[in-house]
């Protein structure tokens, strides 16, 4: 009897192990089947966008399923402890596998359903479509039977530094490719599929611990990583044949730059500014009025550097003028007053039309025909050929805007980690205590407010030339087209307050989704509302958390810090009493 029990006790883990392994093999098989199914035809006609009718050649959405299937296969192999693949998942494969399998399922089923709905019925599906639908369900079913193998990441193997730098470069190249693919998606279905695949895949990489490993590398080689990021960003226009998507990218950059400027005001100093877009408007109007357009009330034409400076300075003045009386208020009151000032700007500009007020801005008609920039004879309005690749006019603006963004990133990171940045955070945390520590609250807040205004104004000067028309309706509190105050704030909160990459990612998402999914127009604001509520419930620190927020919302993470000092509270005396 006793021998019997010991035997079962010994065999039970082995059984469980073999059971888990069976499901791992099943996941692998499912992943392979999903991958293979993308080589089949899914539909009869080419009425559905992308070419899904060809055997042996994945097209359109099938490519996304293919990617998800391949990643699932790869992680299933890693889960089976195949030698050489362990680096894929430093903190465990199961959760990553589940997410990847869900991503493949989501993309495949979305495609199949979209075909059936758009073309009117299931009959439009080839057998290949059904095969794909079934095949993509297998890894999901199997992956959710797997035991959780979440583990603490081991110390990564030391690689030679050239290899680590190569990994960073490769990561940014992949990042550039993924973002470019997203911007270049030509129809809404492809973009939706892209969002599903990319969303699940990125989440899976986070769960697998690969992203943590990568971010450790980027911190180690910080300057190289930053350079690589900007080279990758600068390379974008060279991948484009037409101006169509470059324009989207320019607008994303403008939006992201302004969001980053707002992040100084909201994320660091904690001043809820609901009228921030007004400063973008001040910069844009200033640049338009001094640009030499015939519609301007001033008969001047400033060179670009001078109009940038003018735009920045005028925004700075507006920032100080608006900030000086309002920054004595705290919290909700400040939010309401800034909201009011934002609207005052828009309405005032709309009334300076020569009828309701002096003729300065042409009222609601705005300032049209803002000429293209000319920079030392380099005309931004024309195409140029650089390194054998023809760059359209928006590519010029893209690169200029990228420079502006680098400036803002530099200002944010340098100001943030300095005496003044600490004072901002202290004011945000507890204003009374901060003033009792000798911080002149009003002055420090005014600096943050004015700095944010200036940066937005700088972005505005470029925006005026990109859009070539400036009208008051571009600077509303909330509207369907970003940037507006509400979207700017949403980008900051969605991305992660107090971080650099957060608002950039938030702005990218908030611009791309409405631009790509035109059919969502009417439900857009509803969708964002729901998305924000869900985000606040499940990830209150935003998509990208800064170190502080991470610790703030997930207290368990603090345990990672060596915590040896809990028991030696008496140690303090020895030093203090000495």
């Amino acid at each position: 009897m006793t021998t019997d029990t010991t035997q079962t006790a010994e065999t039970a883990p082995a059984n469980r192990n073999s059971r888990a392994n069976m499901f791992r093999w099943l996941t692998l098989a499912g992943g392979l089947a999903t991958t293979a199914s993308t080589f089949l035809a899914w539909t009869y006609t080419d009425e559905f966008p992308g070419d899904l009718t060809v055997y042996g050649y994945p097209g359109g959405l099938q490519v996304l399923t293919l990617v998800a299937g391949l990643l699932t296969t790869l992680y299933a192999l890693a889960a089976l402890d195949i030698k050489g693949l362990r680096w894929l998942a430093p903190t465990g494969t199961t959760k990553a596998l589940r997410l990847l399998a869900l991503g493949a399922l989501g993309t495949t089923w979305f495609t199949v359903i979209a075909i059936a709905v758009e073309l009117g019925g299931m009959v439009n599906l080839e057998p290949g479509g059904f095969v794909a639908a079934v095949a993509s369900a297998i890894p999901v079913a199997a992956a959710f039977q797997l035991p959780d193998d979440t583990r603490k990441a081991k110390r990564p193997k030391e690689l030679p530094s050239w290899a680590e730098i190569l990994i960073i470069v490769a990561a940014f190249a992949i990042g550039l490719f993924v973002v470019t693919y997203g911007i270049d998606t030509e129809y809404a279905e492809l973009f939706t599929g892209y969002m599903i695949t990319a969303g699940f895949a990125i989440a899976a990489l986070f769960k697998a611990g690969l992203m943590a490993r990568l971010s450790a590398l980027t911190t180690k080689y910080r300057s190289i990583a930053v350079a690589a990021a900007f080279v990758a960003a600068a390379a974008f226009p060279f991948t484009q044949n037409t101006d169509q998507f470059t324009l989207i990218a320019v607008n994303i950059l403008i939006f992201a730059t302004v969001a980053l400027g707002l992040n100084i005001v909201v994320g660091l100093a904690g001043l809820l500014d609901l009228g921030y877009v007004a400063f973008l408007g001040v910069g844009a109007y200033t640049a338009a009025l001094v640009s030499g357009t015939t519609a301007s009330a001033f008969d001047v034409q400033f060179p670009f550097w001078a109009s940038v400076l003018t735009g920045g300075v005028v925004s700075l003045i507006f920032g100080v003028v608006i900030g000086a009386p309002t920054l004595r208020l705290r919290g909700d009151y400040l939010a309401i007053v800034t909201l009011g000032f934002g609207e005052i700007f828009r309405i005032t500009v709309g009334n300076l039309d020569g009828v309701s007020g002096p003729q300065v801005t042409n009222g609601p008609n705005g300032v049209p025909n803002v000429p293209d920039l000319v920079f030392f004879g380099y005309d931004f309005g024309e195409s140029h050929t650089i390194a054998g690749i023809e760059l359209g006019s928006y590519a010029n603006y893209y690169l200029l805007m990228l420079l502006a963004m680098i400036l803002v990133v530099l200002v944010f990171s340098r100001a943030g980690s300095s005496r003044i940045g600490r004072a901002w955070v202290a004011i945000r945390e507890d204003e009374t205590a901060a003033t009792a520590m000798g911080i002149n609250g009003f002055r420090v807040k005014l600096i943050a407010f004015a700095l944010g205004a200036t940066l937005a104004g700088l972005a505005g000067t470029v925006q005026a030339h990109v859009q070539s028309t400036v009208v008051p309706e571009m600077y509303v509190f909330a509207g369907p087209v970003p940037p507006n105050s509400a979207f700017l704030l949403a980008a900051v909160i969605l991305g992660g307050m107090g971080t650099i990459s957060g608002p950039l990612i938030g702005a990218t998402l908030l611009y791309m989704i409405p631009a790509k999914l035109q059919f969502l127009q009417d439900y857009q604001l509803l969708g964002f509302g729901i998305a924000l509520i869900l985000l606040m419930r499940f990830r209150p620190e935003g998509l990208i958390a800064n170190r502080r927020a991470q610790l703030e919302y997930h207290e368990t993470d603090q345990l990672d810090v060596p915590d040896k000092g809990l028991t030696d509270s008496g140690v303090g005396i020895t030093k203090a009493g000495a």
Partner: protein
Amino acid sequence: MNDMTTTTENTVENTTETPAVLDASGVTMRFGGLTAVRSVDLKVHAGEIVGLIGPNGAGKTTFFNCLTGLYVPTEGKVSYKGTVLPPKPHLVTQAGIARTFQNIRLFANMTVLENVLVGRHTRTKEGLWSALLRGPGFKKAEAASHKRAMELLEFIGLEHKADHLARNLPYGEQRKLEIARALASDPGLLLLDEPTAGMNPQETRVTEELIFAIRDQGIAVLVIEHDMRFIFNLCDRVACLVQGEKLVEGTPSVVQGDERVVAAYLGTPFEGAPGAEEAAEVEAAEEAQGTTSKTSTTSTTSPEGETP
């Protein structure tokens, strides 16, 4: 009262060569019709630990807020080392008075080190431009601030937790960190508002030694506290505030022995108070009742309810 004034005068005479570190004279604070602090005079001299006691609601914290510029006193003036203080908290700190708060007010989501660095704010000058341009001066100042902050963390014994968030520290360490943050502004006078509130006896003792160590650095200390043993051990001089007015001031032994202080805390016996005889009578009656109906009395007549 005569006794009291002589003791204070004695201490003043001893240190007349230098002006008092803190000299509050006739400080009055009115909130509408309520006078929270009524014409309080208080002097703190260099190298002194002065205690401020008084029952709840006596106006101790209000008085502190008047000293540090959080409130503008309705009447009276506060001067630090001979110069009258402007009623702005950050200017008071710049002048050399640092404080802690009764309910801990750390920057909860900043690290321990950052909290102390914020305390250095008034003693450093690097503004936005120097932060953006990052010249050699900026790096030097930043390094110096870090060094000083780490020294202070070592002083209170928290250097190994420099990277922890302030909110994740245990209560006692948060109190210590608040003191370190105040010390970071290189004050000449430290105001501590109930530094041992909520601490166990051992932690209180640690705090006591910490305050002595601060005094030994030449920083005058003014402490509000309810823990009498702590305050009488610690202070060179104690002032008792009752209903916004200074009742007594003197050495701990003098204040301890003053019956008005005892009365302020515990109340005075009233005219018809039960004497020892009546108490014994009630006790006897209760005992008798208890023997007759042991089971039912406990709930109906509780002894606490009977004795006034």
